[in-house]
């Protein structure tokens, strides 16, 4: 099946971003296809560059970058939501800004669209 994931919470705000990233790995491992991960609401903060969490904590943003690089994925950050919150270029590796139009396409071609976040 083809999936699109939407992430609505910031990293470290809740477990949503961690869970979404694990879910992405799991569905790919099971042979499904991930069409797109779309970041909206406070989810746009997953794309900030230069985050430095304490060494004994997980690095949510780097986990996204790894997912993107290993699987040649699109991590799409809503440009309007990002600009509203001052999340600007350069973004972390693997992320790029685009419009809601990209989500419109992803919804169209996906069998499942799943949102993560409160």
């Amino acid at each position, binding site marked *: 099946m083809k999936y699109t994931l939407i992430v609505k919470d910031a990293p470290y705000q809740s477990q949503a971003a961690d869970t979404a990233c694990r879910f992405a790995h799991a569905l790919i491992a099971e042979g499904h296809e991930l069409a797109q991960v779309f970041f909206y*609401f406070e989810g746009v903060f997953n794309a900030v560059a230069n985050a430095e969490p304490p060494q004994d904590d997980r690095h949510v943003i780097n986990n996204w970058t790894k997912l993107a690089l290993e699987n040649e994925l699109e991590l799409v950050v809503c440009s309007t939501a990002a600009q509203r919150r001052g999340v600007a270029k350069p973004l972390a590796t693997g992320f790029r800004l685009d*419009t*809601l139009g990209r*989500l419109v396409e992803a919804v*169209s071609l996906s069998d499942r669209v799943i949102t993560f976040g409160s």
Partner: protein
Amino acid sequence: MIMLVSKRCLFINRHAPYGSSHPQETLDMAYALAAFEHRVSLLFMDDGVYQILHNQAPAMIGMKEISHAFRAWEDYGIEHLYVEKASLEIRGIGVEELLVNVCLVSSTELHEIMEQQDFIFSD
């Protein structure tokens, strides 16, 4: 341009209109999907029913009014505008206080509406 497959999408609005930017952003997403042939419906429940009340004056707290966009929901290609009946009753809101004509639904009917969707987004 790829051929778009039309999907049934339901946007659930559960939050009061000006406590965060989520109502505005949910609306932006719903209207974007509706503009590109998706079959979009809006549902207002819990505190989300306050989004479609008459006489909003959010300029007083520096917020942009979102209710204008709801007035013309049919022009934006939205198929249905549902309101959960119990959410109005609990808050003592009558349908005459709403700024648009809505389809009142019970929680049982909501289950059926949700089952018909391809994609559900909650604000």
